[in-house]
């Protein structure tokens, strides 16, 4: 039994050099992204000790396009097309709160039918977003079927939105004052049929993905975010709802006609990866009911868009309005100085807030759990960078 010290002595005699292992040698730094099948437009540096992640530092900004500065150079209507680009697959929601804020500043009342169509477009778009998120989550975890099925079903919702707005993903449909155009003929029937079909599909999703033992093993009990920490970190949307806080802007601060709609806030109490990936799914289910109600309660005729001046402007002031997007509360803080161009626009997005939870959750997890944890945060890097 030779001790380590003896070995050093021996090696010296032989002219060899043994290097002692230091703390730094044990840790390996990995740069995940931006070219990585898992990270998307985002990079984070992690340090691993063996299999365990001991450090994580997000490095966003690869798609930072200066939206907030660009807003100051355009008037409120011109701003819409570039404001929806950060989340092109959830474009009705990201322009929704902008429209609400501008309406508050300018003082416009949206016609009731316009409000319903807005909410309808927003809910349809929530399905489109969540299905894309689910597809990527599936392929992250190596479940190819879960990539193919949601991407296929997503196209059906995109067809609906295309019939409604005229564009595949970038709709520019919600504008200050209402929506751009009325719903086309026969849209209601198509919509109802699609929702019925989709509700059946959701059951199948649950069977092949959420009830699959492999998926459950990979996600249950992984990276638990407790209720207190969720509040402290100020995370948003499905992440906070997965930690046992039933907070949904549609319920907490009902905008437009959402106080006339009967729905439940979906939440879970465990706060692990499974809960975070299951809550958006429950939201999709609930969204189906909301769409049906919206179609039923919608006024049969009427204006869809309030009349606006060519260059809408209001008195100096500020507004902060938010909506519940696919990724949580999405707020716009707009300061106006009385000119048609906004003085300052600040976009407060759920993704940016959820990013704070990433280092918190990853530290202490195994490297193999990284994709499951990362994408369960309902994070869309382009939106976080703006």
């Amino acid at each position, binding site marked *: 039994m030779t001790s380590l010290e003896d070995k050093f002595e021996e090696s010296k005699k032989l002219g060899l050099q043994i290097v002692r292992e230091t703390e730094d040698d044990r840790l390996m730094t990995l740069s995940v992204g931006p070219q990585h099948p898992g990270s998307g437009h985002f990079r984070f540096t992690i340090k691993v000790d063996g299999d365990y992640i001991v450090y994580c530092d997000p490095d*966003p*900004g690869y798609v*930072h396009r*200066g939206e*907030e*500065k*660009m807003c100051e*150079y355009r008037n409120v209507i011109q701003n819409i097309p570039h404001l929806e680009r950060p989340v092109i697959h959830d474009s009705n929601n990201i322009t929704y709160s902008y429209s609400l804020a501008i309406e508050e500043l300018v003082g416009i009342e949206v016609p009731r039918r316009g409000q319903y169509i807005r909410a309808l477009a927003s809910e349809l778009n929530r399905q489109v977003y969540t299905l894309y998120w689910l597809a990527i989550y599936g392929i992250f975890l190596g479940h190819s079927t879960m990539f193919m099925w949601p991407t296929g079903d997503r196209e059906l919702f995109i067809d609906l939105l295309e019939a409604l707005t005229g564009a595949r993903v970038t709709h520019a449909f919600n504008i200050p004052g209402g929506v751009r155009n009325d719903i086309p003929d026969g849209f209601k029937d198509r919509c109802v049929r699609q929702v019925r079909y989709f509700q059946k599909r959701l059951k199948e999703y649950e069977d092949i993905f959420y009830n699959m033992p492999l998926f459950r093993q990979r996600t249950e009990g992984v990276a638990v975010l407790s209720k207190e920490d*969720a*509040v*402290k*970190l*100020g*995370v*948003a949307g499905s992440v*906070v709802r997965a930690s046992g*806080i*039933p*907070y949904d802007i549609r*319920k*907490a*601060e*009902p905008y437009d006609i959402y*106080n006339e709609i009967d*729905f*439940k*806030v*979906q*939440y*879970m109490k465990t706060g692990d990866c499974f809960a975070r990936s299951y809550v958006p799914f*429950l939201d999709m289910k609930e969204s189906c009911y909301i769409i049906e109600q919206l179609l039923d309660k919608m006024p049969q005729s009427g204006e869809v868009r309030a009349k606006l001046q060519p260059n809408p402007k209001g*008195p*100096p*002031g*500020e507004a*902060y309005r*938010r909506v519940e997007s696919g990724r949580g*509360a999405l*707020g716009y*803080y707009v*300061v106006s*100085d*009385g*000119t048609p161009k906004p*003085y*300052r626009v*600040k976009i*407060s997005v759920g993704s*940016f*807030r959820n*990013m*704070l939870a990433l280092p918190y959750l990853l530290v202490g997890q195994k490297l193999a759990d990284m994709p499951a944890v990362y994408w369960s945060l309902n994070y869309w890097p382009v939106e976080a*960078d*703006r």
Partner: protein
Amino acid sequence: MSTNKDEPEKPAASSPPIPSAAKPPAPAAKPPAPAAAKPASGAQPPKKEPEAPPFEKGLVEEIKKKFGESIKVVFIKPLRIKIQVEPNSIVEVATFLRDSMGFDHAESVGGTDYPKDGQIEVIYHLGSYTREDLGAHILSLTARTSRDDARLPTLINVYKSVEYHERETFEMLGVYFEGHPRNDRFLLPEDWADIPPLRKDFRIKGR
């Protein structure tokens, strides 16, 4: 797994302007008016003079009772309150808001540059997850600092959630947060050598 809490009911019931007999603090709150700092058109004060909703007024009274006149109430609107504090007392006020009022997280931190006043206004939008009657409310806590030497004490020890927001504000507006562990690059490229882009004297080329 789900509940249908009627949390919006309480604020919604209290927000319609019940004609309250209390002394109107809203006109008294008008003069500070950093929001109307621009002299462009202060035309409509008589029109937008609704009674401050009682629930929000109660909240403001509570803060005022604690800190007296050192805080300025900029406006009280339904569901939205904006107060302005001195930079050296912002940590104290934020701690009070968190511990006694229930505003437990920051939704966003932003800033606005006012070159005419020579000031930058940093604004914290505070919300509440734990108090159900505050679910719809946003309290905007603001502080102003000079443009030339923009410094503010950080709120990271009060609200953990402001960490990345403050980093972003630092690089977008050049406001140095004293006590923040990392005032460094976040969204902009590493070789960024210009002035912070959201300052008003940063002009986009060709516009």
